[in-house]
């Protein structure tokens, strides 16, 4: 198990539990009472830690190396997944994956960022940072879904669109912008979930939908806390402060009305019980898809336009004067 710094109290409890369990295995002493005691202490400590997380701590949880990624959910929640590759122009981006799959008895188009599960795979997946080809592949799959009247589900988990030389040459900005424009008018339902990191344009590039939800310990912001710190505080040392100032947690986003709701995670975060997370998410998706399918495509598009048009806070001069 990997423990984050604010999880240190848990680490020692788990160590104690491990030791006692070894004693139990030897079978000489009855330690069942101590085990029960420790286990309830762990639950109690978890509740204390996780009910009071700061913005930065949630950012850390969202990046937990054991956190489930898109491919995990595909394996757990969907059947008959057929991965579809390539943008048909340049190459196949490994940081965004997609394909057809079966969910709740119906075909869906699944698109999501994918981070690697170990050092080698992390490089292969470019740490979940897509190039323009990733966004163009996503768009190609969405148009395919529209053609065959299949709903689109996107899973968002990226530290940002890749800021590389070739990415600029091949139009990173254009690729993201084009997706936003096309997703605005896509005739089929679009259901989006932030399952990890929701960093800026890289996230929203596959994140404009009829309904957008965030898992409990994820974040969504215009910029990562680190970059924000480096630009506004002119130092990398203010990431915690920046994370608070950006109000980037799921709670904040729901309170602001910028997302449609929060999906609860198992105690201690999705990585603590990925299977339970998948079960919760399945239930949530079923209900949401059902509701979206009841609307006509025209209703959905109108609702999308209205929803995004209403986002923003400003004052009106004449109103202030009064």
């Amino acid at each position, binding site marked *: 198990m990997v423990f984050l710094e604010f999880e240190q109290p848990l680490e020692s409890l788990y160590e104690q539990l491990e030791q006692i369990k070894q004693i139990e295995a030897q079978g000489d002493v009855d330690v069942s009472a101590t085990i029960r005691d420790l286990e309830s202490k762990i639950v109690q400590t978890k509740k204390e830690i996780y009910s009071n997380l700061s913005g930065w701590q949630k950012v850390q949880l969202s990046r937990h190396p054991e956190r489930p990624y898109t491919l995990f959910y595909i394996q757990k929640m969907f059947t008959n997944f057929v991965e579809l590759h390539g943008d048909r122009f340049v190459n196949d981006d490994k940081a965004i994956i997609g394909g057809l799959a079966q969910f709740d008895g119906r075909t869906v188009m699944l698109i999501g960022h994918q981070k690697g599960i170990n050092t080698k795979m992390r490089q292969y997946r470019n740490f979940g940072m897509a190039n323009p080809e990733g966004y163009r592949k996503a768009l190609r799959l969405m148009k395919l879904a529209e053609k065959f009247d299949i709903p689109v589900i996107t899973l968002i988990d990226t530290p940002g669109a890749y800021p590389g*030389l070739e*990415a600029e*040459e091949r139009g990173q900005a*254009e690729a993201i*912008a084009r997706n936003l424009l096309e997703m*605005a008018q896509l005739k089929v339902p679009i259901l989006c979930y932030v399952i990890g990191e929701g960093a800026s344009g890289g996230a929203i590039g596959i994140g404009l939908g009829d309904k957008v939800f965030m898992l409990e310990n994820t974040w969504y912001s215009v910029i990562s806390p680190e970059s924000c710190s480096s630009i506004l505080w002119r130092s990398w040392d203010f990431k915690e402060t920046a994370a608070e100032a950006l109000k980037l947690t799921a709670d904040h986003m729901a309170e*602001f009305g910028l997302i449609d709701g929060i999906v609860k995670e198992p105690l201690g975060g999705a990585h603590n019980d990925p299977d339970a997370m998948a079960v919760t998410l399945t239930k949530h998706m079923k209900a949401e898809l059902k509701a979206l399918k009841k609307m006509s495509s025209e209703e959905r598009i109108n609702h999308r336009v209205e929803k995004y048009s209403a986002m923003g806070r400003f004052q009106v*001069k004449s109103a202030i004067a009064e």
Partner: protein
Amino acid sequence: MEEESKSWYQRLRHGIQTATKSKKETPDGLWHKCEHCNETSTVKELKENFFKCPKCQFHERIGSAEYFEMLFDQGYLRLYDDLLSYDFLEFTDLKAYKSRLESAVQKTGLDDAMAVASGTIDEQPLVIAAMDFRFIGGSMGSVVGEKIARSIDFCLKHKTPLMIISRSGGARMMESAFSLMQMAKTSVKLAQLAEAKIPYISLMTDPTTGGVTASFAMLGDFNLAEPGALIGFAGPRVIRETIKKDLPEGFQTAEFLLDHGFLDFIVDRSELRSQLSTLLMLLENRAKPRKQATAKETES
């Protein structure tokens, strides 16, 4: 900058006795030194040359008001000047957003980083929404998004083409996810405009980066740019730090983007008005769908 930092011994050697604070600057209204070629010209010459350096044609950064004056026929209507940003997140970095806004308003005399006006170019109607870089780096917050949304509603209602002149460092961090969502908001509205088949011209000027490039700036039916403008998604510094290599000469310039297929054309500012006029004429002059015969017409 270098002048100001003359140390005491240099001042002594040059016989400078005036206190630094009472040092007289050359009045802004008279001379202009080009940051590109270092040549000096009069401000009058600069203005007459469409705010380009008369010597090297370097395009100075200008604001919304200059574009309105330069492009519209006599008389135009300013729209949505009553929309103001405010610090709803209580965002404080080295400075509170609230005081950033106050000093930006005071320093620039502008309301926000975008101004909108409706007018005509050679009697052809056009709505122009232009960004002001001087206002917090031309950053896009809720007000910029709302001004674009309202401009599009105006264009839909009056069937008027839209032009957006971008000059922005990207989304305004002090409005966090609200600024991010302006990318979605402006794109959703532009999609409506596209559905209605109303032309949208995007002019990218120096600089156009970040969330602005990755939403409305790149979505023009016609993507135009001024010569030499920096246009990109990530800023050059971030890219350099990522790839740990120097960037090639001319990377992310308008010319680079044209070469890579992301612009329709680059337009010199002195040609902008006539090019727009021609473009509007060509669009207006296209074959119109045959009108459905009205009841009256069929009767007679």
